């Protein structure tokens, strides 16, 4: 549906120009004789009152439009008497264009109005695409640890204001989860704004987050809203929150507590209504203990903690995810290699220090380097970390540590079925319980 501009014609002056201007802007023109008619046309981008020669008669039309809560109208006339123009603007016109001198301005008005409507529609379509792109189905896996994280996320989504803290190693999908929370939640029509706290030095990050007024510092020539304001109505994703400086931590805490921000150099606060999602690979309780992260901020952020498990803790998920990437890259590079048992064994044996991101790269690599087949030696570059003995189990390690890790991994692979896990490991159920309990104690 094309953008529509309604013209209420009080006079016939310049009547041939309107269709050309509308077509220039890519809009459809609807001509009405009265306000009622204009309203029934449901103009999507604005109302224009053509008043060449009868400018003094438009006040009534403007009053009617205002009481009908119609979109802001502009008046086009020929009179340049400033008193008359002032009266028209006072009566509620958004602008007044005196033809022919203001012809260019009028054309720009057409273009900008149409652009706003088309941008709004595009934004709606884009949000729908993003919802699909960042659907929860993108977070693939059946392991109990992932499913626990996803169940918790599903509970958070309806609570549009709840602050979420996502933790997990690099490459586990924290950003993907943050987007899924936004695009599948109640704030999906608002903006999703992302900032990585490690990319900017402290002063630049502060100005970027909080914005500034003109003159706040040497280069602040004009006022600028910060990302808290830009994300208003939507979600602000603070990636790598664990790297935030202590002074910015204090300022962020104030925002979380008061839901207000103050631009640098300003004396006024602005209320904000947004969800904050923070993510980190840093062990924040440990950082609190060491004094590098504020305890009060940690508690405030930790309202809804979601931990994304490392790939090595997710058992057979590695195969499910590998199949997903294999399908994707097979289409992209026009091949269709099967996931052979040999490849499956290699994928399961690897410890994936780079997590899902590393798995994606491994599958793409094997697809590209293979001649329509997948070879184990193509999965990883020669000196890649993550092979046997280089993973989460420190190597060399004591036998009991290795046994405990094996018990945990097998339980994941057997989807929590302890009898099956014990059978696969060739140990008794009692022994399996002992190993798992020892690991729990260690974790606590």
């Amino acid at each position: 549906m094309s953008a529509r501009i309604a013209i209420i014609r009080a006079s016939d002056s310049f009547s041939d120009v309107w269709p050309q201007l509308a077509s220039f802007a890519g809009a459809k023109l609807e001509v009405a004789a009265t306000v009622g008619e204009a309203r029934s046309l449901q103009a999507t981008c604005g109302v224009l009152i053509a008043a060449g020669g009868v400018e003094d008669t438009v006040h009534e039309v403007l009053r009617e439009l205002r009481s009908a809560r119609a979109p802001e109208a502009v008046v086009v006339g020929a009179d340049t008497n400033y008193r008359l123009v002032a009266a028209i603007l006072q009566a509620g016109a958004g602008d007044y264009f005196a033809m022919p001198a203001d012809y260019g301005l009028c054309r720009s008005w057409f273009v900008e109005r149409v652009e706003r409507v088309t941008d709004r529609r595009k934004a709606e379509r884009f949000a729908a695409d993003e919802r699909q792109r960042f659907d929860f189905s993108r977070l693939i896996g059946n392991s109990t640890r992932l499913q626990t994280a996803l169940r918790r996320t599903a509970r958070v989504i309806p609570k549009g204001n709840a602050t979420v803290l996502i933790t997990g190693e690099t490459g586990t999908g924290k950003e993907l989860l943050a987007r899924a929370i936004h695009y599948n939640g109640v704030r999906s029509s608002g903006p999703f704004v992302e900032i990585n706290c490690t990319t900017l030095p402290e002063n630049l990050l502060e100005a970027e987050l909080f914005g500034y007024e003109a003159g706040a510092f040497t280069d602040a020539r004009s006022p600028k809203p910060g990302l808290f304001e830009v994300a208003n109505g939507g979600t602000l994703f603070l990636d790598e929150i664990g790297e935030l400086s202590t002074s910015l931590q204090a300022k962020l805490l104030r925002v979380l507590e008061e839901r207000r921000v103050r631009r640098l150099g300003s004396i006024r606060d602005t209320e904000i209504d947004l969800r904050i999602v923070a993510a980190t690979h840093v062990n924040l309780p440990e950082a609190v203990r060491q004094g590098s992260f504020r305890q009060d901020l940690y508690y405030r952020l930790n309202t809804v903690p979601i931990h994304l498990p490392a790939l090595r803790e997710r058992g057979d998920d590695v195969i499910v995810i590998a199949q997903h990437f294999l399908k994707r890259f097979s289409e992209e590079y026009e091949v269709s290699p099967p996931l052979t048992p040999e490849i499956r064994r290699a994928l399961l044996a690897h410890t994936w220090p780079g997590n899902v991101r590393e798995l994606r790269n491994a599958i793409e690599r094997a697809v590209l380097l293979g001649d329509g087949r997948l070879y184990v030696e193509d999965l990883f570059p020669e000196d890649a970390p993550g092979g046997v003995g280089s993973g989460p189990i420190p190597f060399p390690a004591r036998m009991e540590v290795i046994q405990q890790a094996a018990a945990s991994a097998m339980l994941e692979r057997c989807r929590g079925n302890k009898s099956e896990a014990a059978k696969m490991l060739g140990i008794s159920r009692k022994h399996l319980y002992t190993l798992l309990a020892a690991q729990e104690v260690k974790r606590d």
Partner: protein
Amino acid sequence: MIEGLTSTVAALQTLFRAREYQEVVDRLREVDPSILMADPELVLILAASLQYLFLPVEAAEILRRAEIPIRVSNNRSHLRRWQNLMGNALIEQGRLDEAREVLSECLASAEEANRMRVIGYASNGLGVVASLRGEVEEAVRLYTRAIAVWQQLGDGWGVGSAHYNLGLTFREWGRLNDAVAHFALAEEYYSTNGTPAERVYPTAERAMLYMDLGDEEMAERLAMAAVERSEELPNPLIRAAAAKVLGAIRLRRRGPAAARQWLEAAAVAAEHSANPLIKAEVEEELAILELHSGRRQRAEVHRARSCELYGSIGANRHVQRFEERYASVSIS
């Protein structure tokens, strides 16, 4: 008079939207300059078309002549478009200080009027200036801001290109894993919102990253995939970029004989593209190729050309980086 002009402008606008830039330029070059200057819309359409045809000097000249009429016309919309076009033309010519001045003015005006699209373009342009100056943090800040704008506008192509620019910036910064992630996102957004040509760039850049990360085998295969995709496309700039990457990787991996064919193909395509940056990059690789081949005189010719081309667009940091690279290869 108004009607005649309006229909002319509307017809040109239609051609412009259809990306018939050469046709727009041909028609407007025949128009009397005084008539052209009387309507800022004509000037802006012409300048934008010239930029798409990689003719930044002519674009800047026309924009310069139109500056006073546009400024006194009190049409802020025209002025912002003029500033954006002028900023880009100045970047292409390497006049980075002037570009930053005019784009900053544009950004401030767009923010005041809440003109999101202009904010996106101006942030992107200022990001390019910062990136060429080696101000990586500022570039990251601007591209991050641009992503927020394009997302709000629902412009998937804009999001993709900002991720692509972030990938380039992180690569320059040495944060290679961040660069890989942004190029992957660029590929993803371009796959649904970009042209086939645009998908080739992040693939080629990823190939170079794998080379930097030490995975030569993967780098060469990815570069080959980029070349294969680019060969189906009519755009010489993309063909040059993909062939240059494959040549550079082969040079490092297999030596001059395996690289020459691709770098010479890149040079031919770059010449057709008329883009000074890609020409400079190809000349750089040719200089290194000739050094490795023991042909110092030829290497010097390419070195001089490359530095001149980088200099012509104000990419002084690139000149410095290349000189260091050239010196280290010369010594070894």
